């Protein structure tokens, strides 16, 4: 009733409904799933789509016609038919070079661009001969979230807080911030995911004390130790592995399934995609069941049933899960906290739904972990709170977030040794200054090599950037005095400045990862996207509606062919007419029209679909395997040209 009343209110009224919302949003850009949340009337809330779903699958499909589809459609339908053109888990590639990606390439359906020229950044080769960077793929996901938020807030956004794994290095943070800019967002802050979770948790539950946040997502593992006291959220230490998550469980399971399945071709992208999907499906089923199976077409015309018990799965993934232990240990040691002395352990991330993971956490910390706030949403909710505070939302004046640098930052010195200027777990923002000198007579330039990591040798740290300070007058060795300043801002991003003191020669850079994109490249992408921004949104909605329409049309046709005897008088004509309507709308470029036509078709074919399902179920009781019934019911030809 209230809703209906709202709808007939004066247009001006709806403004007041939005008045208590700040226009800044929190975004959890996840490996597997992404969400956007706002603070509405003082409460953080995740924004949902028409069907009430808050989650946007972090999967991006690039069509041959230049269209882009993001979300569940891309994951469930297009990834199966176009594995190479449908990028999932792109977060694992953020800020990474082709050599870094090698490790995650063991079992992947993607093709990497082998173009000449700039080989310093990963590029996926997708349909239409395009090569896209992880940054661009992420920006597509962010655009969908932005569109959702703009619709909910009925207007443009004031800014966004985007979350990143606490253990992301400088290059990965930069890539994330640039993806936000490319998606047309003003990035107010990059917020560490465990900190976001603690913020949502602490404010909601009024928690005080020292907490551990155990965040195991699709592709990253973070642990943060925080002290919560009088509104101050102080990160004591953080640790993790930016390449460890549910994906690795899937891959390990998939590798075992492939090894068991005779004649499966691990070099076929379709097979790889299907086995990875099967592994994920089995893993999810085994959260509640003790054994599960899925049917997978591993070779043309041949369906294989893959079975797995929970104990088999747990044996497979336990070695992967054990990789959490060293970072946990180090984070506690760095925080100076004993494992038994924590007030609580907060679970974050989809992978913490697995009973095995919960058991591991409970055993490790010696206490039952807390999961009162949906582990899939808690990060986005925390980000929304932070966005609200940054944009000047009322009511959080006493709240203070103190976060830290996850990995030490330093410079290469003589002999390839890394000299640390800023140590890990230093509270941000922070700075450091150090003086270096020349080692050769008449040396006129300094080569600076900025590195991040805990190891002594530069070769074992991550190379962030190289730059040169030139124009130093020739002097005897050791006379020049080079002062280098490091500054890490509240986003955890590093800026480096160098100055030769005797001459005043200066050089300063915002560190760009050696393997990343230059500012110019990002700027060009942003300009290009401005030119197409409006078109892009329309094109996307249109592409999505078309894909959905194609699926439903194909399903309806297949159903009528399969069970014509179930059609009642006039029903075929009605459905045919609705089908024509969909096709006509599909040929146009109005996504609203397509949606309406699809709904009409759905309406016209519903009684028939119900009869068909009832019959299938009856047949099921007469001895057919329920799995096979499910298979027929789900037999939806896939996408354009799928038949």
């Amino acid at each position: 009733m209230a809703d209906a009343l709202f709808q007939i209110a004066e247009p001006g009224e709806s403004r007041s409904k939005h008045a208590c919302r700040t226009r800044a949003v929190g975004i959890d850009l996840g490996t597997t799933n992404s969400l956007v949340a706002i603070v509405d009337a003082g409460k953080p809330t995740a924004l949902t789509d028409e069907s009430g779903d808050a989650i946007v699958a972090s999967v991006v499909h690039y069509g041959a016609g230049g269209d882009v589809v993001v979300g569940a459609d891309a994951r469930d339908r297009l990834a199966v038919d176009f594995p190479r053109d449908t990028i999932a888990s792109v977060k694992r590639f953020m800020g990474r070079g082709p050599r870094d990606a090698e490790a995650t390439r063991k079992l992947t359906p993607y093709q990497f661009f082998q173009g000449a020229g700039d080989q310093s950044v990963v590029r996926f080769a997708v349909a239409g001969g395009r090569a896209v960077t992880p940054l661009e793929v992420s920006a597509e996901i962010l655009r969908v979230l932005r569109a959702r938020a703009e619709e909910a807030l009925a207007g443009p956004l004031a800014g966004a807080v985007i979350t990143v794994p606490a253990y992301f290095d400088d290059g990965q943070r930069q890539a994330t911030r640039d993806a936000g800019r490319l998606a047309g967002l003003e990035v107010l802050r990059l917020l560490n995911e465990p900190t976001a979770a603690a913020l949502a948790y602490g404010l909601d539950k009024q928690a005080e004390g020292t907490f551990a946040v155990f965040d195991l997502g699709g592709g990253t593992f973070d642990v943060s130790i925080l002290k919560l006291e009088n509104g101050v959220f102080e990160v004591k230490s953080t640790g993790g592995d930016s390449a460890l998550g549910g994906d690795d469980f899937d891959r390990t399971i998939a590798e075992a399934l492939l090894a068991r399945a005779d004649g499966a071709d691990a070099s076929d992208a379709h097979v790889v995609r299907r086995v990875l999907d099967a592994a994920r499906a089995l893993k999810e089923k085994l959260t509640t069941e003790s054994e599960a199976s899925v049917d997978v077409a591993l070779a043309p015309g041949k369906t294989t049933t893959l079975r797995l018990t929970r104990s088999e799965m747990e044996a497979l993934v336990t070695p992967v899960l054990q990789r959490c232990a060293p970072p946990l240990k180090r984070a506690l040691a760095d925080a100076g906290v004993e494992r038994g002395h924590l007030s609580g352990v907060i679970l974050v991330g989809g992978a913490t739904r697995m009973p095995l993971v919960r058991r591991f956490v409970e055993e490790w910390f010696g206490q039952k972990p807390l999961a009162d706030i949906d582990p899939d949403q808690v990060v986005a909710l925390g980000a929304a709170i932070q966005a609200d505070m940054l944009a000047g939302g009322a009511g959080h004046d006493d709240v203070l977030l103190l976060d830290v640098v996850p990995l030490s930052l330093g410079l290469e010195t003589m002999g390839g040794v890394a000299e640390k200027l800023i140590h890990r777990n230093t509270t941000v923002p922070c700075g450091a200054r150090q003086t270096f000198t020349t080692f050769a007579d008449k040396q006129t330039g300094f080569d600076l090599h900025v590195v991040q990591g805990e190891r002594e040798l530069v070769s074992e740290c991550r190379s962030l950037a190289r730059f040169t300070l030139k124009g130093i007058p020739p002097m005897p060795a050791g006379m020049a005095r080079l002062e280098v300043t490091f500054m890490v801002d509240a986003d955890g991003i590093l800026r480096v400045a160098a100055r030769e003191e005797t001459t005043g020669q200066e050089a300063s850079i915002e560190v760009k990862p050696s393997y990343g994109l230059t500012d110019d490249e990002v700027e060009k992408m942003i300009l290009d996207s401005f030119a197409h921004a409006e078109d892009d949104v329309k094109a996307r909605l249109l592409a999505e509606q078309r894909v959905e329409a194609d699926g439903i049309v194909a399903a309806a046709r297949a159903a009528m062919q399969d069970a014509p005897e179930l059609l009642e008088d006039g029903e075929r004509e009605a459905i045919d007419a609705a089908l024509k309507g969909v096709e006509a709308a599909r040929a146009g470029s109005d996504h609203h029209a397509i949606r309406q036509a699809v709904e009409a078709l759905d309406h016209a074919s519903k009684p028939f679909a119900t009869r068909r399902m009832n019959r299938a179920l009856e047949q099921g009781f007469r001895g057919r395997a329920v799995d096979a019934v499910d298979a027929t019911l789900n037999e939806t030809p896939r996408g354009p040209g799928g038949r």
Partner: protein
Amino acid sequence: MICWSCQRGAGAGPLCAACGALQPPDDAADLFGVLGQPARFAVDLAAAESAYKDLSRQVHPDRFATADPQARRASLARTVQLNQAWRTIKDPVRRAEYLLLRAGIDVGDKKPAPGDETKATHRVAAPPAFLIEILELNDELSAAKRAGDAVKVAFMAEEMRTRARETMKTIGQALDAGGGGLEDAARSLVALRYYQRFLDQASGEGGDGTL
């Protein structure tokens, strides 16, 4: 200080006395003074921490996310200085090093650039006899680790921890006594650094498995 925003006298606080705009910090400010504490080793940590947090609430970049660039820069620089001050003061070793540095004694473990001699600092080195003792202890520890003698490693570490604690106490007393005590404090601080390295060795990686 003249306020960047209203061009009037800004006063001594972080915020301009006239218009309330956030002022950039004085880069040369004493880190104890930044937290309103007297410069001595026996510091009131609880008072320093609450000053740190109260000031952070006022100047943190989160409070200036949508402010104009100049205020944002001031906020960043202020917070960097605050964080630096609290990091220095809360840790006894860094606090001692800083107190010595203020007095012109450099015990930093970084090699000075040639030319640093021109500054009024002088460096303190460990006496050779001490170095020999530490070397021998290190050898003994390595041998115990190689032999997998966990009991001995733990025993040596415990002895060293006690020694480090005692040394820290001496350093604190010497620092606050002033005068010739500063030289003693500096030497003890150098020794302490070797103890710490020894302890890192003792608890080093690969010692006790993964869990």
